[in-house]
């Protein structure tokens, strides 16, 4: 596509207010745009996009001028400059977005903000390689805040609010990358507020992304019920073909479910390549403290990098409980009339068989914690070294345990 043809297509989209097609034309991954810019520059080394785009309507002309300059800079491999151009393109676009009464501008907004973020990331990469401080992504976060504000105001047309969730998602993505997650809270509060458009009005893809992030953030707040709800929502609404996204959701959903006492089926684990959790699940099933500890040790760095370590660590008490439950079952068989009184020495021996050799004080400490956290109903007799468990339902469901401190 020649540049003239590209501009013509753009002009036509603007004229008939065709948002989706304009979105495709505006994205930096658009082959048409790249080709057009490439051709224009090959034909004329001193090519100035500002001249070429001047025929477009006001606002759009400035936007496309900067946008094409951004593309040109990307083709030259200078990403930092490209980011500057992308930022320069943002401002005329926001002006258009503000002034245009039609909701069709929502679609190109998606492209614009996504362009901005990916160029910022590339620029940061370039800066990092050059040994400079990568600050473009952080700046991009600031720029997105402006976009968010404009789209939240939605001047002239309430439907323009529908651009907001995508911007929120992008922002959260940046915050995750920059490890500035406390900034997410405000955005999420806004999403939940009445000011925001109805959640179901947004495209499913955006909802899924948003819920995924909400779920992940809830884990950090130790709000596991909410985490489970959000991640399940994301999993259920995820496009069936989006296997990678599903696996990503499951990577965080499985530990949460484990924590709440739901073990995934082997088929699910196999289907989504969640093999790292297999030994954990096995340990949960059998109360194998040794396996659990070994897995946590061996996979420590991986889990830490994935951000699930602190979550998985909390499964330890569940594994202890499982072991205690086994001890309880054995003890019940041996002494049916004293089934509610589990000698701690037996628990200690069981732990020792797992390779975890603890003295009685430590065993008592674990047992006390199990009781305190409601993994087990009962009490300890220090004097008799006996754990007295409730006659009915001594091991309540895991999701009733006090997981959070």
């Amino acid at each position, binding site marked *: 596509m020649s540049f003239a043809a590209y501009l013509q297509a753009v002009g036509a989209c603007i004229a008939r207010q065709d948002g989706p097609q304009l979105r495709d034309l505006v994205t930096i991954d658009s082959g048409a745009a790249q080709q057009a810019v490439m051709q224009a520059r090959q034909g004329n080394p001193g090519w100035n996009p500002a001249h070429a785009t001047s025929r477009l309507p006001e606002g759009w002309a400035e936007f496309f001028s900067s946008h094409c300059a951004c593309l040109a800079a990307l083709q030259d491999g200078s990403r930092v400059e490209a980011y500057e151009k992308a930022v320069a393109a943002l401002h005329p676009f926001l002006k258009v977005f503000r002034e245009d009464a039609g909701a069709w501008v929502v679609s190109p907004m998606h492209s614009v903000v996504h362009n901005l973020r990916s160029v910022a990331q590339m620029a940061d990469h370039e800066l990092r390689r050059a040994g400079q401080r990568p600050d473009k992504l952080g700046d991009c976060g600031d720029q997105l805040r402006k976009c968010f504000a404009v789209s939240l105001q939605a001047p002239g047309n309430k439907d323009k609010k529908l651009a907001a969730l995508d911007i929120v998602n992008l922002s959260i993505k940046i915050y995750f990358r920059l490890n500035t997650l406390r900034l997410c809270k405000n955005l999420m509060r806004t999403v939940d507020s009445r000011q925001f458009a109805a959640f179901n009005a947004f495209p499913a893809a955006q909802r899924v992304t948003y819920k995924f992030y909400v779920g992940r953030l809830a884990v950090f707040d130790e709000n596991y019920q909410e985490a489970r709800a959000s991640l399940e929502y994301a999993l259920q609404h995820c496009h069936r073909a989006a296997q990678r996204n599903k696996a990503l959701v499951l990577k965080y959903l499985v530990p949460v479910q484990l924590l709440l006492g739901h073990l995934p089926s082997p088929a699910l684990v196999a289907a989504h390549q969640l093999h790292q959790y297999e030994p954990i699940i096995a340990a949960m099933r059998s109360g194998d403290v040794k396996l659990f500890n070994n897995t946590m040790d061996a996979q420590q760095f991986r889990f830490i990098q994935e951000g699930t370590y*602190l979550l998985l660590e909390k499964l330890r008490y569940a594994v202890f409980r499982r072991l205690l439950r086994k001890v309880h079952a054995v003890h019940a068989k041996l002494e049916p009339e004293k089934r509610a009184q589990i000698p701690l020495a*037996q628990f200690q021996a069981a732990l020792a068989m797992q390779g975890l*050799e603890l003295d009685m*004080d430590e065993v008592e*400490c*674990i047992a*006390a914690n199990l009781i305190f956290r409601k993994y087990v109903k009962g009490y300890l007799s220090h*004097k008799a070294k006996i754990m007295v468990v409730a006659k009915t339902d001594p091991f309540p469901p895991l999701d009733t345990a006090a997981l959070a401190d």
Partner: protein
Amino acid sequence: MTGRPPPPPPPQQQQWGGQAYYGGYYGQQGYEGYDPYQQYNQAYYAQQQQQQYAAAAGQPPPPPSDDASAPPPPPSKDGEAPSSASAAGYDQQQAQQQYAAQQAAHGGAYSGYSGYYGQQPGAYGQQPGAYGQQQGYPGAYGQQAGAYGQLQGYPGAYGQQQSYAGAYGQQPAGYPGAPHYGQQQHQQGPQPGTYGAAAGQPPLPPGKPEAASSAAVPAWKAAADRVAAAAAAGQRAQQAGSAAGRSPAGPSAAAGAFDDSYNAVPPPAALAGAGGGAAPAGRRTFSIRPQLPRQQPPPPASPLVAAFKQAAAQLGPGVAGAAAAPAYTAVQVSSQQQRMAAAPAAAAAAAVSPQQWPPALKAWVERAFKAADVRQRPKLQEVLKKVIGDAQAAGELWTRDWESMPMPDLSYSAADAAAVLAEVAAVSGSSAAAGGAAGAAAGAWGQQRPGAGSRWSSPAAPPSQQQQSLAQAAAYAQQAAAYAQQAAAAKAAAARGGKGGGSRAGQRYRLDTGGEDDRYGYSRGHSRQHGQAGKGRKRSYRSDSSTSDSDEEHWSYAERQRRQRRAGRFADAGGRLGGSASSWRAEEERRQRLLAVMDEGSDEEVDWDSLAIKGTCQDLEKSYFRLTSAPDPATVRPEPVLRRALERLVGLLRAREVGYFYALDQFKGMRQDCVIQHIRNDLAVQVYEAHARAALEYGDVAEYNQCQSQLRTLYNEGVPGSKLEFLAYRIIYQAVHARHGEILQLLNTLKKVKREEAAHPAVAHALAVRAALAAQDYRRFFALYASAPALGRALMDIYVPSLRFDALGVAVKAFKPTVPLPFLACMLGFAAASPACSAGKAGDPASSSPSTNPAPASELASVEEPGKSDAGASPSKPDSPAAAEAAAAANGSAGAGAAAGPGAASPHAGGGAAAAAAAAAAAAGGEEEEVPPPGCRETHYVGDYPAKDDLEEGCQDCAAWLAECGAVVTGGTDGDGGGEGGAFVASQAALDCKASAAQQLKMPEEKAKVAHGDENLKLEDFLARF
């Protein structure tokens, strides 16, 4: 410091009326103003064109008689044409090289140059008429040129080791050469900024060890004396009514500042770096002061000569000659030679097409173009043309090392450089004339040497021409003084003029470099100066003129006496007053430079480091004061002083001579000094680390946090330090605060812990602490508390109260009916976990050998024993202490790291005995270091909640704490614990869980160690500040 070459003079022609300006400027300043170029030329020639150079330089001192007859070179501008191209070319190149070399040795040079430019307005003050004057006294130039030629013979004799002294030696020579400025230079000397430039120098480059510094000191002294001499000359000049130098600053101010220059803080080495202080004025001053100068009477060229000679004579033949010679001579000669060589060469240069260039050159040119801004390209082209033409002219197109050639500096244009050199050439006349003049003037010089009057009024130079010029010099100088005093704007101008003079002085010191060995002397001399300034400042500074030195040996005894007297006269007069005045000036200049930077816009990389203040304060003890304005260099300590101050404070802390609040105050002061001076090296790390440790030891978590965050960035910048120790602290801190929103940061930190870092004992311990906290494993936490390395305990202290309270909650909830206090005391860390603690319980130490410890089969058998044994009351086995010891020994041999390592991953591994053993091993490891870590008072930090070894004591503490919490304790005296009645025996008491659960338990109130109020403020600490 960056290797970036400093910006040479910006193009200012338009502003200053083009050639007229340059003509005037160089007419006036010919011998001093353009020194950097001369310098480079000189070095260049010494280096590259030795044969030619030798022809001039090697000539013996000519007979003293034939100078008068030397035809003065016409100061016509015609002479400039041939030289300009080649000279500029040389300058470009040489400047780059020299600057680069110099930068490596010494960062202050850059500012020095800026200072040089900054001072120019002062010089402009004189220029308008100067040119005319110059026309009127052509003879002076001829003479001088001749003098240079003659002087050239000296450097060789002067010797290498003198080169440094030469740098200073130059000054006196320069001084009389420009009486007008000379004094100002001296006034300028003590500028704190200046001083800081020298003082804040990095240590000597590795290539020059003691030799440099040892040479530097005496040289410095010599310089000091010369400065004194020059000052004396200045004084005489004043007395003679030709105190032109004073004019700008006003008599009294000048005198004050003048005194200061000799006796106040800065060592003369700083004088050499005077530019450093003057620097901030930057180019900006160019546009600031165009209007002032016109009224000022131009000092004619002849006084320069006269004064020059006079001073030279005064200083003694050898010294003065050596000192003065190199600066001018080499340059003059070289420029002449250059002109001769370059005239045809420049033409030839254009003829060689780029295709014939060596590839390295092509690559260099390409690089230069790439590096340059588009707007700079025309300029760059010009510069490159000169450089290449020059190389061609020298026949070095293929031999020069283009690969290592620095990029041409475009902040000044080739045109400027060319113009500068053109003027130089014009002043010194045609090459032919100059040759003759060299010989002739040399005679003048030699003749003058023996008896050259020590007074202006009685010059002993016999040749009539000289006398004439001297007389004229005096006249002009008088005139200048009168003008200056009359001038309405004298005061404002004075500051600037003085400044200018000062920086030029700095510039000039640098110029010199004595002997032939010193072709690279420019940079070398510099690094020496600075090395000296950094190291031997104190000594050299105090003993300014009293020590003998190769320079001084040339002086007669009487002369030395006189010098000493004179030096003594100013010894106590300087001090603070002058210091603050000059510091104000330096500050003003810095401000100006900052403004200039801001004006220039942000498209250029601003070297902020060059704008950083260089402190001059020498105090080891300095209280923190939160700055409310720009810092005064006089109150900021340079790096070497800071190092000593830190050493002192650490020593005081170790000796426990000072309290925390004193240390806090001192540390904050040091941190501030570091920040102000952009010190971000190991020193900064040491300061922050020591402060963080001191704060931890005292329990001042807020200060610790400040230090930790700074340390983190510093470590990330790659500055070495106790990185892992502080990583461990950070992990503990974040783990401790994980529940209060630090969990994300903790995760972030954990993500960055590398495997090999995790193996470090301190980090492993920290990770174990984190795991124990996550698991709420109280037993393990307190075991780790006992075994914490370094100051980890200080951070764990933060969490102990709430952890204990949580544990109490757990105990109350989980146990029924009672929990014996010994158990609780051990679990909550009131009593040391020992076999005695769990005596009467199933805790068989033999069974608790950790998995890392390969247990013998017999022990493995005993593992089952607790399981089999009656849970009720298995008495501790008689052999258990021995077994515990064995386990402890095995563990100890494995080392604390091994014990903590696996424990880190699996917090439940390892039993009580193992934990105790680990604790013992760690404690043993800690005791090996006799000296407390920097910043600490104690070798072994005990922590706020040390477990009591005695069980009963621990139980007492536990009982007291339980009472504070509101828990109910039964037994002891009459409870079911079987008390003996009467006295309360805590180890027999028990926590009544049911009764306690009914109570509203409350956490005992913590007293903040560093109160926001003054309840904890120690009066003696407070008073110690005064």
